């Protein structure tokens, strides 16, 4: 089973896509490491992560089929 990643705002420009489907990874810390390695600009970007539509603030286990959203702050008006 895979997991789904959604990227918003400037993050989708870094990833080059607004979604990715990848092989299951055990937790959000490992996912971050994997993404930072592949997309170094992500490591310095400001964003929050939501797991299945709920914000997470520390390392969290990921279940197969989960959706993670990466959301940066917007300032425009």
């Amino acid at each position, binding site marked *: 089973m895979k997991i789904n990643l959604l990227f*918003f705002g400037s993050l989708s420009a870094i990833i080059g896509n607004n979604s990715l489907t990848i092989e299951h990874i055990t937790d959000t810390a490992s996912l971050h490491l994997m993404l930072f390695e592949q997309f170094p600009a992500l490591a310095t970007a400001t964003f929050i992560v939501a797991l299945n*539509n709920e*914000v997470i*603030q520390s390392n969290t286990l990921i279940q197969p089929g989960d959706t993670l959203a990466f*959301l940066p*702050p*917007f*300032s425009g008006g």
Partner: protein
Amino acid sequence: MNDPQFQERYHRQLILQGFGLEAQQKLARASVLVIGAGGLGCPILQYLAATGVGHIGIADADIVSLSNLPRQILFTTANIGQFKTTAANETLKALNPTVNITVYPAYFTQRHCIDYFHQYDIIVDATDNFASRYLINDACVLMQKPLVFGAVSQFEGQIAVFNNPSLSAKRPLNYRDIFPIPPQAGDVLNCAEAGVLGILPGIIGTMQAMEVVKLITGIGQPLTDQLLTYNALSHQMITIKLHPNAQMKIPETVEAYMQIQYDWLCGNRVAGITQIEPYQIAEILSAKNARLIDIREPHELPEIQQFPYISIPFSIIKDLFNELQHHKLLLICQTGTRSLQAATMMLQQFPNTKVYSVKGGVNAML
């Protein structure tokens, strides 16, 4: 409500199941302060006035310019050069003369928040920069005012309702529960720098107006302690449930609040850098080692026509500081935000560099 045309004007709302006279009367008694009369503020103001909110405050220091018109729908070509507050007041009065409008043709500071927030039931953040957003957020927490937040970036927008006391004993959340520390200028481009399609703030602003009406009348479920993100290209919408953040810190007293330098916090103003007006460019370039550097990305328009320049995009300029440090540098971007940020980074590494930032950027040269 004393208006003889009340029944006729609000007929469709009065006959609406789940809304009706009671909700309409709540709107008439409500007061809402909208900070920013731009892309978000215009549709918010238009719908709040049309729907019948009794008292509306409008805060904006800007004047109407031609590049505002594709999204700031309260204004017409004839309004160019007028204060946005004046033009908005006229349009809204014509739309609904029964609404009371107070205008603040001012850039909202901490003092304004402390002096005026208590006169309103709800505050709406329709600004376009982080310094204002954090300043407004902190004041709303301090003064216990519900805040309807909206922000856009290119084809996407965010909406949230902060500081709305919920029925549970839980502390109401605010913007600092999501992003405790303001991002630095340059990290996140604003609309003037990154561009925006006018319809997008129209959609987000209209959604903010809907949240205001929900808060006032009690209908539906406002986005309390949630962050909605909308993508106009895909119509994808995601609503995130927020949680209290242990890192969240708000000044606890008015005195502490007044001490915070929000512009500094967001990297907007920095000591040691001379900001110059566009008319001073020629004078500074007359020095023989002076260089005008356009730090915009290659796709950004218009091209500079008036002066010879070198193009070094913001994304790579860091790597060239060493070569640049012996020149007199005049940095320019689209609006003056990124050039200030780049100048700051340069001075941190090479404190003796002569570096200037063009205030207002290429936009100010047009």
